[in-house]
């Protein structure tokens, strides 16, 4: 009986996580910007990248520029330039902080962003300086609705 009452609650919480779902959702939260960047924050570190919607709208990436560990970023500042189909597009920091790690796999394999934008194709990990900034960002459900509305 206990398992039957827990299962729907867990399922509801899991739906709020970044896919694929796991109990990691209890410890991390995903936020999204209106420029289609995400920040998955856990223990004060935000793993950031672009969403699946964003990579679809860009096309196949041929180049991704990344900052360096130690760089300080403000929320909304340009953090990367992505190139696809002869278009160079800027990506912006979803939250302010210090870059602690960049995904160097993207230097030789920018297509990883297209194949796995919200998992292996992350761009930077940022040590968040002000978690209050996330109040201005969307969570998954609101973002999905926002992205769907932009299609029309």
């Amino acid at each position, binding site marked *: 009986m206990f398992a039957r009452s827990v299962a729907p609650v867990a399922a509801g919480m899991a739906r709020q996580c970044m896919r694929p779902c796991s109990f990691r959702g209890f410890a991390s939260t995903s936020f999204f910007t209106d*420029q289609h960047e995400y920040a998955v924050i856990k223990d004060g570190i935000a793993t950031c990248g672009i969403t699946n919607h964003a990579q679809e709208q860009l096309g196949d990436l041929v180049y991704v520029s990344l900052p360096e560990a130690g760089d300080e970023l403000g929320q909304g500042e340009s953090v990367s330039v992505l190139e696809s189909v002869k278009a160079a597009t800027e990506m912006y920091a979803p939250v302010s902080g210090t870059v602690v790690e960049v995904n160097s796999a993207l230097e030789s394999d920018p297509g990883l962003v297209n194949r796995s934008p919200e998992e292996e194709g992350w761009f930077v990990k940022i040590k968040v300086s002000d978690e209050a900034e996330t109040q201005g960002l969307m969570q998954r459900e609101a973002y999905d609705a926002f992205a769907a509305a932009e299609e029309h």
Partner: protein
Amino acid sequence: MQRVLYVRNLGRVTYTEGLRAQEKLQRQHLDELAGKTSEPGRDTLLLCEHHPVYTTGYRTSNYPSQEEERLRKLGAEFYRTNRGGLITYHGPGQLVVYPVLNLGHFRKSMKWYVCQLEKSVIRACQTFGIHAQTSPDTGVWVGDRKICAIGIHGSRFVTTHGFALNCNPDMTWFRHIVPCGIMGKGVTSLSMELGRNIKIQDAISPVVSSLAEQFEISEVRNWDEEVSTERTVEGQEKSSTSSQ
């Protein structure tokens, strides 16, 4: 949806003057998006022709200073830009179009936008009886010869840079580079394909009309007429005030 497209013909300008004009329009769009102004940004086509210049895109490290020197010695300028794409040439006889658009008025997708530009140029070529097409390499092609190069930048879905359609340029300038980094393919122009002289002036109307159709524009306005109309209105207001 009411979509207005402004067209401004800058004429023969330096590359820097073209950049300044784009930056001003881009700033107006970005300020509107950031809520810094209630003045709406204008979706604008800037048309121009440049003095001989080679430009690189964001991946500029492919072209070190020795390369820059070599090309400058030919008598051309050299600029490193923030657009996509690799090296290209602009010069007299080539129609350069910079659409500075807020894609929020259209569709927020760079891939879609570039595709729309390609389709517009293909339409324009069709009016000359030239069958052009796209290929896995961005740009517009006639066979394996590129007739129009494309390179774009997007910032919060506000576009800058654009495309360059060869009308009757001196094609020898292209021999000194691998255009757009694509080896083994040629370049061509409207004049070369038709065997007669097609000037930039002949291409402007077909290109603007094609863009207007492809982007489903409700109204095309001439930027310079708008400016002179505004000045006339200001002048009349001033003179009526002073006469009282």
